[in-house]
């Protein structure tokens, strides 16, 4: 097996459609140092190998389908689709072009564009598919409706410059339907042995000389005797036919039915390949004694003895001269090549064909082996050699260079022109034998290389996927943030409703806070978002060892779809003491941690310890994330009041949870006493209040608010009912337990605060005298009573806070009697003085004991609170 070493040089790149060049319509023709190239567009390029640039571009009115060089007259015949054949001179175009392009930069002049117009039109026929020029005779193949027409035309003008063709013969063939019909027919000219081909352009892959013993049986003795060339035509439907140019189509018996009206005779089909024909050629099989394999000698001199027809799917037909013992004649054999074959050419000694993946060649073996008679095997040629040149769609005739190499010019699928130099190894084919160890090592190296490469690839792939994922997540986060932030001033895109609820358990009822997060944006909140609830309570001065504490709960959001709600609830307890310290501030926010996205090694520029002021309306990168505040709300006593269902004092209320506290031993003792007394059955309910409730009179605080203010603030609530009920309802608006109360229009309720103390609320209408000069001011008095100081103060604080929120600064202040005000102030001042004196005495440790001081303070407190504040 001869090895082909090749060098490939890329010369130029030409335009081609995005899908690449299609088969069948491209050509590369070499003439001395000029390369003519057509890539199926309207242009014909002329590239000069010495100057290494495109010298001329010819522009035609239609797409160029076929180009032929007519060397004796130095002309190019070009077939334009649906137009006809044009004749272009091969002379340098800058002498022809009327407007000369300016020559720039010395040698590197830009290629000149030569438009071709109808002056060069030598044959007008819009149905021609392909043509060939043989000895001055033009053979054209046209496609009719269901038939192919081959016309033989002769130049009747004496001058070669302006040929005018008239038809001398016409043959018809019925076209079939198999095969790839978008390919063009191919033509090949066969000369009999002894014919004079010197005048013919030795375009080595179009004209061949064939031995007489093969020629005459195939094409007729008449053609052989007249030295008439025969044109073989391969059609896209697989038929191969022959047209002698100077003799009758062989055999001379007429095929056409005698009753057919049309005069055109039918031609003879040589063979039916059943697939589109790509190229036809001839090979010289039997070598003479002086020849060795290779491209020695002029291609003209080689007389072939085998005609080769190659189809698109790889079927190859050889018509070989077979010498049998009695006679010799043509023998037809089919072989199979790996297809599909895009293009190819056949010189007398070798065949080149190109598949989409490779370019193969095979040539006649130097030493002939005994022919193998099994079908499908190519017995007489060496196996096809791969030239490692992929996707060539057009090849030119191989030529011999001065160094003895074979040079092949090819056009690739993507429009690149390349020159391939094959140096034939003419010595006895020897492979450097590898030892098995070397081979094994090489294989190992290759495998390792493959492994490492694949590993890298997978790593890179992972990294890329991860980055993609992070980007998409980030994108989503930003979208959500923008959505939430953009509506800050208007309405809340995501609402968060915080309520306090009492949960019923067996022995204790814990107070739960529930936050309902509703996603009103268009995005779904996916993994990575958390709902952070920050619970903080300020220190309560009347409860010992209470400190400001804050608890943070975070609930991860799995997937909150738009319009969905998510409810989280948590108990409201004080960790250490187990006591509920009200009021409690609850703030909800959405948090997205960027650590997940950005990875561990991203240093977050903002940390929790930074000095940047925190404003609630700006998203922050806090602890490496984005936090979006949702809602903040206070939970106070009024939220947590619990009421009897029907205000029946007989039904015991469930106890508040006091799990952490050990019960007071004194309380237990006293309770035990009481239970012995049967009279205390009726007053069971008071047990739960603690003994102190029996013996202590209830503390009362009162707040008076002018009706006017209330009405203004509570417009919708005051509409239906009277003011007192409205006010009560408003006070208990956020209390989930107060439904029954709200249903009945009550002005007075009694409830239990989370610590278990009774709280009594009463709203009445009063009129405040002596405040305004105009008269008594109608006001609403809210009375808060509770046996426990803590309960009362908590409720009082809640009421005051609500009133603060409700009351807006009024434009006009009512006329007030200064006298009354002064009276109020002096009263309060007196109280203040008393408190101060008491403080002083406490500091000086006078005889007043703590109990007396406490009682005195309590009394002062009572006086402060009742009558209490007056809000006008």
């Amino acid at each position, binding site marked *: 097996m001869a090895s082909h070493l090749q060098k490939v040089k890329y010369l130029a790149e030409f335009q081609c459609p995005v899908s690449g060049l299609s088969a069948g319509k491209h050509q590369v023709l070499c003439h001395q140092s000029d390369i003519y190239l057509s890539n199926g567009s309207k242009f014909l390029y002329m590239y000069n190998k010495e100057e290494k640039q495109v010298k001329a571009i010819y522009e035609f009115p239609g797409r160029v389908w076929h180009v032929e060089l007519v060397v004796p007259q130095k002309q190019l015949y070009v077939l334009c689709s649906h137009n006809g054949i044009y004749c272009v001179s091969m002379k340098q175009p800058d002498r022809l072009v009327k407007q000369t392009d300016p020559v720039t930069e010395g040698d590197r002049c830009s290629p000149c564009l030569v438009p071709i117009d109808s002056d060069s039109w030598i044959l007008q026929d819009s149905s021609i598919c392909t043509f060939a020029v043989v000895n001055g005779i033009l053979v054209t193949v046209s496609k009719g409706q269901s038939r192919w027409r081959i016309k033989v035309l002769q130049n009747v003008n004496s001058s070669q410059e302006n040929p005018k063709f008239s038809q001398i013969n016409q043959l018809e063939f019925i076209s079939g339907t198999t095969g790839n019909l978008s390919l063009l027919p191919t033509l090949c000219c066969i000369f009999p042995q002894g014919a004079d081909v010197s005048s013919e352009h030795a375009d080595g892959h179009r004209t061949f000389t064939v031995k007489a013993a093969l020629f005459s049986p195939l094409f007729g003795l008449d053609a052989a005797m007249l030295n008439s060339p025969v044109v073989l035509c391969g059609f896209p439907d697989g038929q191969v036919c022959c047209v002698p140019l100077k003799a009758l189509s062989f055999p001379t018996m007429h095929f056409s039915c005698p009753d057919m009206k049309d005069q055109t005779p039918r031609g003879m089909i040589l063979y039916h390949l059943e697939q589109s024909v790509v190229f036809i050629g001839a090979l010289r099989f039997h070598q003479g004694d002086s020849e060795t394999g290779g491209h020695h000698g002029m291609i003209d001199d080689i007389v072939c003895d085998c005609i080769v027809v190659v189809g698109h799917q790889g079927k190859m037909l050889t018509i070989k001269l077979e010498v*049998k013992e009695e006679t010799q004649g043509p023998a*037809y054999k089919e072989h199979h090549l790996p297809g599909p074959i895009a293009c190819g050419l056949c010189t007398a000694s070798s065949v080149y064909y190109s598949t989409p993946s490779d370019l193969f060649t095979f040539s006649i073996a130097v030493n002939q082996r005994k022919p193998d008679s099994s*079908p499908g095997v190519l017995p007489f040629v060496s196996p096809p050699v791969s030239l490692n040149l992929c996707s060539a769609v057009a090849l030119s005739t191989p030529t011999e260079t001065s160094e003895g190499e074979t040079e092949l010019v090819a056009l690739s699928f993507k429009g690149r022109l390349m020159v391939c130099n094959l140096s034939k190894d003419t010595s006895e084919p020897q492979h450097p034998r590898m030892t098995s160890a070397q081979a094994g090592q090489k294989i190992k190296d290759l495998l390792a290389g493959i492994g490492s490469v694949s590993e890298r690839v997978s790593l890179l792939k992972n990294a890329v996927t991860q980055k993609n994922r992070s980007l998409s997540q980030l994108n989503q986060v930003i979208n959500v943030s923008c959505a939430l932030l953009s509506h800050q001033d208007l309405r809340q895109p995501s609402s968060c409703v915080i309520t306090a609820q009492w949960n019923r358990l067996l022995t204790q009822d814990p107070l739960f806070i529930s936050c309902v997060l509703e996603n009103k944006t268009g995005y779904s909140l996916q993994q990575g978002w958390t709902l952070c609830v920050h619970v903080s309570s300020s220190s309560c001065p009347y409860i010992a060892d209470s400190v400001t504490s804050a608890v943070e709960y975070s609930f991860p959001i799995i997937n909150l779809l738009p319009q969905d709600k998510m409810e989280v609830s948590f108990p409201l307890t004080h960790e250490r003491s187990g006591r509920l310290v009200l009021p409690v501030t609850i703030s909800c926010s959405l948090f997205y941690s960027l650590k997940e996205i950005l990875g561990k090694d991203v240093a977050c520029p903002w940390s929790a310890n930074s000095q940047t002021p925190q404003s609630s309306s700006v998203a922050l990168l806090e602890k490496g994330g984005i936090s979006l505040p949702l809602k903040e709300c206070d939970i106070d006593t009024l939220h947590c009041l619990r009421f009897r269902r029907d205000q029946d004092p007989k039904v015991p209320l469930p106890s508040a949870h006091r799990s952490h506290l050990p019960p007071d031993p004194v309380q237990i003792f006293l309770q035990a006493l009481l239970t012995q007394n049967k009279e205390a059955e009726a007053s069971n309910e008071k047990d739960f209040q603690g003994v102190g409730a029996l013996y202590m009179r209830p503390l009362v605080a009162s707040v008076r608010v002018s009706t006017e203010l209330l009405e203004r603030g509570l417009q919708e609530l005051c509409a239906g009912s009277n003011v007192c009920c409205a006010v009560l309802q408003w006070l208990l608006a956020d209390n989930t337990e107060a439904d029954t109360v709200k249903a009945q229009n009550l002005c007075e309720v009694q409830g239990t605060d989370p610590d278990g103390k009774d709280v009594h609320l009463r709203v009445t209408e009063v009129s405040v005298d002596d405040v305004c000069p105009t008269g008594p001011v109608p006001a609403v008095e809210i009375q808060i009573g509770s046996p426990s100081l803590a309960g009362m103060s908590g409720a009082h604080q809640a009421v005051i806070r609500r009133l603060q929120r409700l009351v807006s600064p009024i434009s006009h202040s009512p006329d007030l009697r200064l006298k009354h005000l002064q009276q109020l102030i002096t009263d309060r001042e007196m109280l203040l003085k008393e408190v101060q004196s008491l403080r002083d005495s406490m500091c000086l440790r006078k005889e007043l004991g703590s109990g007396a001081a406490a009682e005195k303070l309590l009394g002062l407190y009572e006086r402060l609170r009742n009558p209490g504040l007056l809000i006008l």
Partner: protein
Amino acid sequence: MEAPGSASLHDSSCLNLWTEENNSIISRWRAVIASRNDSMLKPTLRQCHRALSQLLRKIQGLPAAVPSLSLELTVLYNTLVFQINVADGFTDEDSREIEHALFRVLDARGLVRGEMSIEELWQKILLNTNMQQLAPVVHRLAGLQGALWLAANQLEKLKFLFEALSGTERHTAPSSCEPDRDILMLLSTWNVPHDETNSLLLAQTSQDLKAILYTAAAFLQGLQLMEEGDSRAAAGILQEAVAGLCSRRVLAEIYTSIGCCCQRMGKPQMALQYWKQALQVDFQCLSALYQSLVLFRHLEKTDAELEALSLLHKALEGSSQGASSTSHLLVGVELLVQVPSLTSVLAVPNGSEVKYLLARRCLQTGRIEEAVEHYLDLMAVLQEEGWQPQEFLHGLPRVPEVFLEATSALLQREQHQDALTVSEKIVSRIIDLIPNRLTILLRSDDRGEEEQPEQSPGVKSSPPQLTSSPALSHEKKESLNWILWASTAYLHQGQALAHLSKHKDAVTQFSRCINLLFKVQFIRTGTASDEMAQEGLYRQEQVLQALKSLALLGRGCQFLQLGKDKDALRDLQLSLQANPGHSEAIQNLLEVLWRLGRKQEAAMYWQKFQSASVPAAAQQERRALPLYLLSQSKKSFPLDEALTGKIQDYISAITEDVPWP
């Protein structure tokens, strides 16, 4: 040019503009015609056509209106006339345009148009009495429509149209004893209104159109009748056509056709007269010449035939075939009459074929010198142009046969060296192809040929078997041909060498010939019932036998010259076996026998020969032989007087011994 009656000088109404444009185009055309500038004709034709069709499109872009109807129809008429000329015939588009125009006429009149066929359209328009001022235009258009239908051979429609034109009803005319003449009658009575002398120029006048139609109708009908076989009627109608308006070429064609009719009627002299007239009218009408020489051959007037052949050849060689007819008429008869039957009448062989006919005729009639000249010219032409005889010429031989005839002619003229050269050419091409053995079964049934196993071993797929005769495969036929040709070539070579007195070489060639001939074996099986189908094969067999006899005879004579009497005797006997009654063979046989001293046998043969009459079959056989062999067999060998005298003496001597009873 202004419309008559228009007062203003600058009246630029559409009608005037269009009229002017139309006139300018037509005058341009007329100017070119007048200048007789042939090269400008075709481009000007195309330009005028393009301009007119653009004008027509402009006019037809507006809705049809009565004032513009006549202009529109005239422009349409002009356009169609040019179009027909440019396209070299009538196309579907022309009829569509006419139909479209008719619809527009109806629209302009406000008449309802439904789904009407073209005949109904015409009828409606023509019978509408409001159309009087449109009459000339409509008639012209009708003329074109008639031309269209005539060219498409739709004579019924044509008849109907012209009946409508002349206003007669459709009834069987009592005077139509000749139904074929109806159309001509209608055409001649068609009263074409005069073209108005207004400013609208016409591409072709109505009178011309009518005349053309008449001639074309007559011609076409005549051809049709000729094809159908009614030559008398055809001749009659064609006479009418002669009187019509047509170009010289067409007139010559008509005369040629009449001549053909006369020939078919069996009146050769009249036919010759007509053909002569055709040639007088147009000397380019070569078909007349060809027909006449065919007739001469038929009448066996060899001199006339040869003269005609040489004239024909000169004419073909000389002027260019396709002389453009510069007729001033745009719509001529040529465009209307484009039928295959005319093509067959006018078929003329090309140059090489005529040359061959000439050469062959010379050879057949014995004018050897001219024959040789012609054959040599012919062979030179064949090498250049090839040999592709047309189908209508029957009996033209294949290329090797032409060469063989040439060789035979050379031999007869005693140019032996040349004969050797030519034969060598043949032999060199064929000799490699000949199989070693060829067996041909002559069967009576249709089963066809069986492949002999030794004929084609090992060929896996054979080329498609295309046989026109079921008896023998194509390959075999061709192989048989090759053998016959090659052996004839050898025979000729042998004869040439014999005449050159190269006896030994002659013997070699003769031997080769004989060897080739013996490769063929005809085997007869079955009954000889279906002989007609295998006529060709029988003929080949006879040729084979003739060749054998000639070759053996030749070799025998050479042996005689070389003094190898025994071989000579054997060969001559075999030759007589193949072809009994051949005088030359007998003569030589007698000589051999006499030399060998077998006088009794010589006498026997002599008596047999004397008494045997030349059977008619031998004559027939001779005629069945191909031309290149005929010359050999034709010559009646002059008997050697001396020898015959000796034999007679001997016979008389023998019989003298026997006393009379």
